[in-house]
């Protein structure tokens, strides 16, 4: 849990890179637009291209990816926690939540 705060802080710090003008345009061709595909694809391609070239878009994307992983890890941690506690009801419950979220992340 403490980790999530650290992750988030670093993610947001990464976010803080600003480019040129301060107006936020929302066109279909905007580099900031997420065009589709599922989150895991996005995370993966962000990781790859961030290593290649550090641009504003990459940093912000990296920050957002980190941000989105924090609740995800929380669920995974819970699954492990209840497994260790041998609380099988809650292993089932947390696994179900994990499955729903993962399915959403994969499908969309």
């Amino acid at each position, binding site marked *: 849990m403490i980790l999530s705060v650290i992750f988030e802080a670093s993610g947001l710090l990464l976010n803080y890179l600003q480019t040129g003008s301060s107006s936020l345009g929302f066109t279909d061709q*905007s580099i900031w637009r997420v065009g589709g595909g599922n989150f895991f694809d996005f995370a993966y391609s962000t990781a790859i291209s961030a290593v290649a070239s550090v641009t504003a878009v990459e940093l912000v994307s990296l920050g957002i990816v980190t941000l989105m992983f924090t609740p*995800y890890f929380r669920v995974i941690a819970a699954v492990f926690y209840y497994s260790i506690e041998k609380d099988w009801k809650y292993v089932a419950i947390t696994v179900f939540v994990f499955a729903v*979220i993962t399915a959403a992340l994969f*499908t969309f």
Partner: protein
Amino acid sequence: MIDILTALLVSVFAGFIGSLVGLGGAVIITPVLTFLGLDIRLAIAASMVAIIATSSGSASSYVRGGLSNIRAAFYLEIFTAVGAVIGAIITSRITPNEEVYLYFFFAAFLTTSFYGIFGRRNREFTSVKQDSFAKWLGLEGSYFDKPTGKTVDYKLTRPAAAGPGMFVAGIAAGMLGIGAGGFKVSIHELIMGMPSKVSTATSNFIIGMTALAGASVYFDSGLLYLNLAATLAIGTTIGSTTGARVLPRLRNKTVKALFLIVLAVLIVQMVYKGATLV
């Protein structure tokens, strides 16, 4: 056109007010940004990601403090997560012509939040009898209440009724890009018998996972703009961290009155916007 500074200010304000009452702030951000001219669906998609930030920020300290009831959170999350995905799918499929419904739905939802907060204002915590389902799920806990210096034990009940309620909250959350905190704490407290502080803490914990489920749908939809999402995330975090510091110094009544005023303004605004589109 919205610029970064405006978005930042709005989200700081929203995060601040939201943290004082136990909300993520998206209920404030989306109406204000749409009022300033942003397409409502874009505001919703970006807010969905931003509230993950507020949730994660507060969740860790609440869990460490022993305030969040993790079991309750995950049990309820079963329903909320599914609802959120469905809600997000609905919004991402809406055409610009059908946006009107979003405005009215949002206004209706803000109204339930209004009652949620209004109804809580004088409630005292009394313990409830656990029903057998709740007992089987082990829904109970205790926390240390700093102001009184006492350890409060509590039991929760009626999880079977709370489930469907959270499903509806989830749909609203996914559709409107919000955490639906106001609605959720009402369910926690009125149906399940949760003490207020546990309710807020648990709601914050749930919101992160729910927002993640909803956000993943928006990723595919082409409605998400990272520049906006990131700005909102930063703003709400700043606002809510500040709010958490200020909160101990404010009286409960002040906080609630402030929030009710803000909500009333937003409701009027949303209805107005919807009406002009019709």
